[in-house]
């Protein structure tokens, strides 16, 4: 059975052909290590992820390492492959995955985990590590990195190795080590666990108390670290970044040149995992950003440029950078897209220019409906901020306002739900005020997601609302919002949020739940058309995993948490203090908040906006 025949039967066959401009082709015979970078979703999603482009570029810059890509095949392709016994293959050389030295999955989202197991199975590789070891044959090392590697226990039974933190140097290092120890797996793992940020699950054995919480984690190899400290790259300015990113043939979600301006965030929103695990903020210089932008645009022919970070306008030289980028793009018919802007007067000036002809809509993320709750979650945005910006936007001609909120946040009451309705109502009123009673074409879109407590955040101990709570709150909001003219309401699927919470804060036993769910046919759980709660419910029963224990239980501050094995650099004391605060904590740039990160690395942001006298760091 050849690939050509398969490709004639499926939709969008170009997902599987490789050979895109700037993709890399090497002769496998000339390299020492073959690495398959696996993204557990379809091509269009995976190719929009910059992290893959960064690491692909770095690995392939090493002459003796060949990094290829593989994505989850869509349903029709999977069916055709299974029917013909055609194993999952890499895009570059169409090599079956089982022939690689290392397969590295990126863990972006808990709901992609069943897809990982499915991809291994499609490759003919036993998903469980124990089954691979038992089989007696040599399999590729199955490794992972990405945000979910910060809480790796639910996947501990499947992977050989996890990489936690910045991967630019760590990933080539684990490949090198493989080159030096191609055959002796256990020796390899013993050496690998000495690398910063490497967690080898088989070197640790957790045991549990009668109440189900973790009793202790026993180390099975004395050379393994007691806690795995995340890998830090102090200076991202000097790290390589793609100058020639791959240009997909088919349209992907984000089909554009992208330059990362900085890593980390100083705002400290208490629900946000990215804001905690990527500290401290490390920036690239404007010159470097401009250089990468130019090179990428020249090497790809893209007609859109975007900046990547957790909060675009927090870049310390945002105004000069954007002014220069705008000038460059205007001369070349390139559109500049700036996500997650804070709406001050400069941003409005910029937005007004770049959205001159088509004002696509403005998005605000107040996250909570009242000041009290916004203070509790440390979302430092006031009602005045929102309404002033909205008024300015409407005056400048925007006709569509999108609002993001979360429900189920710790400390939420009915008042906070009413607050959401109130904000929507007041925005409609502002439009009447500006554009008269007729108001013209205008819409407010209220989008609500369900709060999922995440590991390594101040809310890691907090219970999640039950499924019924979420439904009730959705109904409450819908009833009230539908009475408002020009307001639409959208919300996330609640069962998905519950599963996400169970897995996000799961221990090693949750692996059985994921495995059983996959056996029941679950995959692409992040896609609403594939998510099937019934299959998950069956998996809860067969695996004995108790939903409420993981999702709805308030954890004790002195409980051993399954992800305590990973040290992000942010201290527990800081997280606990933040969890209990009902008032806001300032931005790290105004004064250091003593999160603990400076124990491991320098923080360039520490009180950088304050005068000298305030720059002294509070004691940890």
């Amino acid at each position: 059975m050849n690939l050509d025949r398969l490709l004639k039967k499926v939709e969008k066959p170009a997902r599987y052909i490789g050979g895109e401009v700037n993709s890399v082709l090497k002769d496998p015979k000339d390299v020492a290590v073959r690495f398959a970078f696996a993204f557990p979703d379809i091509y269009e999603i995976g190719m929009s992820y910059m992290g893959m482009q960064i690491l692909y570029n770095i690995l392939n810059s090493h002459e003796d390492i060949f990094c290829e890509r593989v994505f989850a095949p869509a349903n029709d392709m999977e069916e055709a492959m299974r029917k013909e016994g055609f194993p999952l293959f890499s895009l570059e050389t169409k090599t079956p995955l089982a022939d690689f030295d290392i397969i590295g999955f990126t863990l972006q989202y808990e709901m992609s985990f069943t897809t990982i197991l499915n991809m291994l199975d499609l490759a003919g590789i036993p998903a469980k590590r124990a089954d691979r070891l038992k089989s007696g044959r040599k399999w590729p090392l199955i490794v992972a990195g990405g945000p979910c590697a910060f809480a790796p226990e639910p996947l501990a039974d499947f992977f050989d190795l996890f990489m936690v933190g910045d991967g630019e140097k760590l990933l080539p290092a684990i490949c090198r080590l493989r080159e030096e120890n191609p055959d002796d797996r256990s020796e390899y793992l013993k050496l690998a666990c000495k690398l910063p940020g490497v967690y080898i699950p088989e070197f640790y054995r957790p045991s549990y108390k009668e109440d189900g919480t973790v009793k202790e984690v026993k180390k099975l190899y004395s050379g393994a670290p007691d806690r795995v400290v995340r890998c830090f790259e102090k200076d991202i300015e000097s790290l390589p970044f793609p100058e020639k990113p791959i240009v997909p043939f088919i349209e992907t979600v984000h089909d554009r040149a992208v330059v990362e301006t900085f890593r980390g965030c100083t705002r400290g929103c208490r629900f946000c995992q990215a804001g905690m695990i990527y500290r401290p903020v490390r920036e690239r210089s404007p010159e470097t950003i401009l250089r990468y932008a130019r090179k990428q645009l020249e090497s790809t022919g893209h007609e859109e440029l975007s900046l990547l970070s957790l909060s675009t306008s927090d870049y310390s030289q945002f105004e000069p950078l954007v002014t220069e980028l705008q000038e460059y793009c205007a001369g070349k018919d390139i559109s500049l897209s700036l996500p997650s802007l804070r709406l001050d007067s400069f941003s409005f000036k910029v937005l007004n220019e770049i959205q001159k002809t088509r004002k696509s809509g403005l998005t605000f993320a107040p996250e909570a409906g009242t000041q009290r709750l916004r203070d509790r979650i440390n979302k430092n945005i006031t009602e005045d901020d929102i309404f002033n910006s909205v008024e300015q936007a409407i005056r400048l001609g925007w006709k569509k306002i999108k609002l993001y909120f979360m429900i189920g946040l710790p400390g939420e009451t009915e008042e906070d739900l009413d607050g959401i309705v109130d904000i929507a109502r007041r925005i409609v009123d502002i439009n009447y005020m500006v554009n008269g009673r007729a108001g013209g074409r205008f819409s407010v879109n209220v989008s609500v997601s369900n709060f999922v407590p995440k590991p390594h955040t101040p809310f890691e101990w907090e219970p999640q609302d039950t499924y019924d709570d979420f439904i009730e709150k959705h109904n409450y909001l819908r009833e009230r919002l539908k009475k408002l003219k020009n307001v639409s309401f959208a919300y996330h699927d609640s069962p998905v949020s519950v599963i996400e919470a169970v897995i996000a804060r799961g221990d090693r036993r949750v692996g059985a739940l994921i495995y059983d769910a996959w056996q029941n046919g679950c995959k692409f759980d992040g896609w609403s058309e594939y998510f099937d709660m019934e299959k998950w419910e069956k998996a809860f029963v067969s695996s004995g995993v108790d939903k409420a224990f993981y999702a709805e239980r308030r954890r004790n501050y002195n409980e051993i948490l399954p992800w305590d094995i990973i040290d992000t650099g942010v201290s527990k004391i800081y997280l606990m203090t933040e969890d209990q605060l009902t008032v806001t904590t300032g931005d790290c740039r105004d004064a250091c908040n003593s999160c603990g990160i400076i124990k491991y690395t320098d923080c360039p942001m520490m009180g950088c906006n304050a005068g000298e006298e305030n720059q002294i760091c509070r004691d940890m």
Partner: protein
Amino acid sequence: MPRYVITFSKKGFIKYTSHLDMIRLFKRAFNRSGIFLEYSEGFNPHPKMSFAQPLSLGYTASGELLEFDTKDVFDAGEIKIKMNSNMPGDIRILDCVQIEKDKKSLAAKCCAAEYRIIIPYCGELPDTVEKDFLAQDNIPVMKKAGKRKEEKEIDIRKMIRSFNITAKNNNIILSTILDAGSNSNLSPELLIRSFLDFAGIEADREDIEVHRSQIFM
């Protein structure tokens, strides 16, 4: 603002890119080559660039035509060299010529296309099959047409301009010239289905290869 026409070939896995993918691919290749295209006016400006005929997904080709207007004047040979160095290897620019501007687009001018269709077949075909197929007064096939995509019977006989069959290495090769233009257009897919039925050949569509070798003005 001169106008040029490129002739190009498409082979290998890149045949699985669609017409829309090809538009994007050429646009970006022009950008990478520093050949900036003229844009149309209006609310949604788009580059002045168009293919003579869309090529179906899955077909290879060796005589595809693309016309475009550039902002600056280039030597046609230089365009060919620049574009070839910025194209994936399986797309090759075979020729580039500057043409006089004409109100009629390439798409409006083209009328027919030559195809080579390779069908795996180990059996014996009667010698007369080619003549018999063409001797039919009309060749009715069902075609999905109109907004509602309803099946409608059409006669494709008069849209077949030439048709011959050779057999080679367990394959039958159909070489044919079909109407391909805005007035009359015949998709090779319809011809394939009707010929297979006529000759009593059973072949899976995914085993058949279609190559477009030339487009006629």
